[in-house]
């Protein structure tokens, strides 16, 4: 046996097989999406790569964009105000989070059983703009604005795709007939999206004084949405590094142990 030859081949084989098998599923949906969408814009992110982390300032700016613009139509039902606190969140203190939550009114029932509106608490999930799906549909010409909690994980292309959508609004090319109420977007499957362009230059006044260009806004809000889709990303990567280091050491030692055990056998 030649373990030194077989094993790397085997490991590589497993990775390649997994990658190859995973790949066909992706273009399939992109193709289904419609007529030759251009490749997604290649943007660099703070959270890329095995050691990438979220830029806290970008997260806070992104949250500002969500609060001031997106949350008018889009819910984020899976995220709580608590999630914003601390180093694994957006870096806000608990008092800041309490104040952020208290700005929103949430439906509740008082002790006499009457429906009331009360200020949201940190343990509450983000307050949704519409009480239910039918209300959301009615208010938006029949198209329900999707919940944004998992948006980055729920689309092919993830962060790049959402960034593409936010920056991909154009005037419809000549000869393209737009359905009523639809907007032309380079990256949306079929190019006709119900959402009007949500972000322009200077859509918000950033609290930290950053210049609010469209690219900056899109980049910030996508950073925020990426965090929201998987708030444990940083913990996951840190744990992964430790686990893999341990496994590498163990593999080395066990390879030695295996050779030692086999050393008295002709094989």
């Amino acid at each position, binding site marked *: 046996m030649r373990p030194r030859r077989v094993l790397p081949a085997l490991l590589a084989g497993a990775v390649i097989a997994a990658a190859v098998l995973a790949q066909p599923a992706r273009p399939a949906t992109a193709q289904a999406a419609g007529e030759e969408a251009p490749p997604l814009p290649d943007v660099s992110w703070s959270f890329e790569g095995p050691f990438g982390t979220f830029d806290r300032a970008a997260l806070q700016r992104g949250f500002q964009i969500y609060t001031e613009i997106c949350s008018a139509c889009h819910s984020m039902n899976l995220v709580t105000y*608590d999630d914003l606190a601390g180093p694994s969140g957006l870096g806000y203190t608990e008092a800041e989070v309490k104040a952020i939550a208290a700005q929103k009114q949430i439906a509740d029932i008082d002790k006499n059983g009457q429906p009331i509106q009360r200020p949201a608490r940190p*343990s509450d999930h983000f307050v949704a703009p519409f009480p239910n799906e039918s209300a959301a549909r009615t208010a938006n010409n029949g198209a329900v604005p999707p919940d944004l909690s998992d948006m980055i994980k729920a689309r092919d292309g993830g962060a790049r795709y959402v960034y593409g959508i936010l920056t991909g609004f154009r005037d419809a090319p000549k000869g393209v007939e737009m359905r009523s109420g639809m907007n032309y977007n380079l990256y949306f499957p079929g190019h006709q999206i119900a959402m009007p362009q949500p972000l322009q230059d200077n859509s918000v006044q950033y609290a930290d004084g950053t210049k609010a260009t469209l690219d900056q806004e899109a980049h910030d809000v996508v950073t925020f949405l990426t965090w929201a889709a998987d708030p444990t990303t940083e913990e996951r990567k840190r744990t992964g590094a430790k686990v893999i280091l341990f496994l590498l050491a163990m593999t080395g030692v066990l390879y030695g142990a295996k050779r030692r055990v086999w050393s008295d056998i002709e094989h």
Partner: protein
Amino acid sequence: MAESAHSQTADAHAAGGTRRDFLVITGNALLGIGAVAAAWPLISSMNPARDVLAAGAPIDVDLSSLQPGQQILVLWRSRPIFIVHRTPAELKKLQDPQDISLLRDPDSNVLQQPPYVKNWHRSIKPEYLVLVGICTHLGCIPEFMPQPGGSLGPAWLGGYFCPCHGSRYDLSGRVFSGVPAPYNLPVPPHHFVSGTTVRIGENPTTSPFDFDSIEQI
């Protein structure tokens, strides 16, 4: 057969004892450490999740409509909380030396309450008692029976009676001697944010106290 011949080779290896060298022992140790480390996330997952902990936030209760002699029951951290408005007569009886002599821990020496309620009435304001309504025996909810005598016989002084195994407490949650329950009923952290609004789950700002440090729920 082949197998008996085989065991000879196996024995030969074992006799040599060469297996147990440094690499093999280290490898075994790493496997053991890895297995234990892998068990930790699984065990940890059974502890209260973040949302469960967040739902344990303090609650405010308005006592303005609670009449003397009445009790209300609210939930805090999924536990029943008794809030009693005690009458002057009931308060007086808490100090009766003869009654006190029947109690197991009349001075609340066992850590079953924050230090700021370690007094004869086990509360911040004498008339308003706040208790975790869980019997210290095996976790049933004791019944509020403030009237002396009655179905519990002439010896009953008024207080809490646990229907499960007959544990008895007085109207400040102090346990009587000779019943299965070992400790007084716990008092949760609380303070008054206004004259008649009590916040349960939060200490007065001047008195930090860790509720998890009490002897027993």
